[in-house]
């Protein structure tokens, strides 16, 4: 489930929000979300304050709100879940627009929508105002293990290469008249996935050899 991932979310800019060091932004996001999650679910005015706070940060970042709103589609599967909650939960019943639903389920569904939306908007703001490279530096400053930061750096570096390779394979399949319509077409897609793995793995081996030939000893040079 979940919507497919589009291209990178970064929105180029030079606002104060863009310039804040990445590690502070990550900590701010984490702190903000912990406070949001810890807020009791029926304190609606407090959630309004959170939203205003978030809107102020988004305004300062000069990222168009529509740019962020379009990308909140990642939330869709959980919106569906939140909408279903009042109908499947137990507890005292209440009536909304002539439909009898569970009171607890309704409250939980609304709270889930509010907290989830605040979370997605806050995360999107971080993603839109922070370059992947800065994010990696920020994580390093937050003492994430070197090895993990390196793995992440390689992933971010080769993400577009690998997804680009996949896109070319898709174009190649479709230009030969293939379109996946039902499970009988799975073998073709699975073979593509297998080929993609072999290409990615072999690229990894070549990258490693190239690094060794430039004097790599297991640590990245400081830039």
């Amino acid at each position: 489930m979940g919507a497919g991932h589009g291209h990178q979310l970064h929105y180029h800019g030079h606002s104060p929000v863009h310039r804040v060091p990445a590690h502070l932004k990550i900590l701010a996001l984490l702190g903000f979300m912990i406070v949001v999650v810890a807020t009791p679910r029926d304190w609606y005015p407090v959630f309004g304050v959170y939203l205003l706070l978030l809107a102020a940060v988004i305004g300062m970042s000069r990222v168009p709100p529509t740019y962020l709103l379009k990308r909140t589609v990642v939330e869709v599967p959980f919106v569906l879940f939140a909408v279903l909650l009042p109908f499947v939960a137990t507890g005292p019943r209440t009536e909304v627009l002539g439909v009898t639903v569970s009171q607890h389920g309704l409250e939980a569904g609304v709270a889930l929508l509010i907290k989830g939306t605040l979370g997605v908007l806050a995360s999107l703001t971080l993603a839109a105002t922070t370059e992947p490279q800065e994010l990696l530096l920020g994580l390093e400053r937050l003492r994430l293990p070197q090895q993990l930061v390196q793995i992440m750096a390689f992933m971010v570096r080769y993400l577009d290469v690998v997804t680009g390779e996949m896109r070319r394979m898709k174009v190649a399949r479709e230009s030969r008249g293939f379109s996946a319509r039902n499970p009988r077409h799975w073998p073709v897609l699975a073979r593509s996935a297998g080929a993609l793995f072999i290409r990615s793995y072999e690229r990894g081996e070549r990258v490693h050899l190239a690094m060794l030939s430039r004097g790599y000893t297991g640590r990245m040079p400081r830039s």
Partner: protein
Amino acid sequence: MHVPDGFLDAPTSVTTGVVAVAAVGVSLVKARNELDDKTAPMAGLVAAFIFAVQMINFPVASGTSGHLMGGALAAVLVGPWTGILCLSVVLLVQCLLFADGGITALGTNITLMGLATVVVGWLVFKGLQLVMPKRLSLTALQAGIGAFVSVPVAALLFVALYAMGGTADIPLDTLTTAMVGVHVLIGVGEGVITFLAVGAILAVRPDLVYGARPILERRQLEIRTSSTTGASA
């Protein structure tokens, strides 16, 4: 299916966070045995592959489609420890760069989709490898069964977490039936596609499949004399 912020309460999120940190810490040490100094570039590229493979949509029926989660696939292809690292990095990148999955639920997501699927997929795969005949042709099937089992087990773990720290009182038996029912179906897709993908890789580069190495090592070098020199003894 990433868990968003505010879905589970704070104690559950903190607990799964601690579990995730411990698992990633152990994996960082153990992955060096699987990849030695190649860890960073190889795991990085495999993580990029897992991310990409999650974007391939497999049509199911009447316009609906699903995608691979890739936990068991990663475990069989690159080993369980590297697999945990790759899935965790994928989830971290999805959380920070794609706003998919809440930052306070990152530990939960890593525990469910990184740790549980990889560990269950690998254990089932390894167990089947021990009891079934040691033949290379069976490796893909074992991987597929591992992938099939890993998905409903992860769903059950989610139900267990929800029972501990859910924010709405859904009757547990309803939730269990729904989650396990849906995820058995998803697991069938995951299993079949993992089976096909591992089979495709085994046909081309069997040496790249980590889970097949014990079987490849048992192979004897076979020297066939060429037919042009006449009948051989």
